């Protein structure tokens, strides 16, 4: 089998996950996209491991071992990530990434309407977010 097939699939999956991480608003959907990216990497690792082990260049099966490690780490990551998301949801009443903007410049400098391009906040201004956050 050509190595290009799994490699290209891996690339496309990775970029799909990338798009999801950047574009999704719900934090849990972002976590799902992260899983997609991790899996794309896993596929890459496995494909190269198979290729290299067949070519007798490398007999440690490092690719597959790393894949297993990645899966384990991904499981840990999803656990911690979900705990964080739930903690945020409990404190702020939302898991919407667009609304978690505590590091933004204050409302006296930037009105709610002239935020950075492509991140327009619907309806709720920063003041409302703060009020919501402290509620």
């Amino acid at each position, binding site marked *: *089998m*050509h*190595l*290009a*097939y*799994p490699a*290209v*699939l891996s*690339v*496309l*999956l990775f*970029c*799909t996950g*990338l798009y*999801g*991480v*950047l*574009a*999704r*608003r*719900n934090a*849990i*959907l972002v976590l*799902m996209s992260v*899983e*997609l990216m991790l899996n794309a990497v896993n*596929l890459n690792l*496995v494909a190269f*491991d*198979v*290729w290299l082990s*067949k*070519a007798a*260049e490398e007999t*440690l*099966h*490092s690719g*597959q*071992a790393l894949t*297993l*490690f990645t*899966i*384990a*780490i991904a*499981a*840990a*990551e*999803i*656990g911690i990530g979900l*705990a*964080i998301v*739930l*903690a945020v*949801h*409990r404190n702020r009443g939302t898991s919407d990434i*667009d609304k978690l903007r505590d590091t933004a410049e204050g409302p006296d400098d930037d009105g709610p309407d002239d935020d950075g*391009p*492509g*991140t327009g906040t*619907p309806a709720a201004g920063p003041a409302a977010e703060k009020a919501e956050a402290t509620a």
Partner: protein
Amino acid sequence: MTLAATAGHLAAGPTPLAAASHGFLSPTGVEIAFVLVGLVTLGAAVVTVTTRQLVHAALWLVVALGGLAVEYLLLTAEFIAWVQVLIYVGAVVVLLLFGLMLTRAPIGRSPDADSGNRWAALTVAVAAAASLVWVVVDAFRTTWIDLDGPVAGSTAVTGASLFQNWVLPFEALSVLLLAALVGAIVLSRRAKADRATDTGRPTTPNGSDKGGVR
């Protein structure tokens, strides 16, 4: 895949198993299966990141992850395929679904599932995909994987490798998992002051169930 025809001079080093005889226009059966399953996987992944129904996204993720497991099988990595099914499809997706429910994600279409960042995200993703595909194809368009012979990823082989060569990282990883477990529990507890004021109240489901979910 058309980019494969572009002549590139990537310094990718010698390709030891360059098999000029294996053309892209005469695929083997495994390749055909791989491509078909890959298309399904990719499609499921795309739906996952674009659908407006949050629960559907999780379900499509199952399809994508399952498809990947099949790809692992096709690449003769049996053990990893089963681990994939067990952990990802079995555990992670269930966790994600619990998370969706605990954060009271809306059932049905939610119009604001994508943020306003989506065009920037699309641009970045397409650009990254284009450049990566170009590089990867340019580098590996002649590399051939010989799938015949002994299985590369059988349980025996993987186990031997893991517990002979990789046993120390493996143990370190178990510590990491323990730390993650403890961390998740600490994060999902309510603060003590919170608890003191909440003693009279019945515990809310998203307050006490998380330990069980973990």
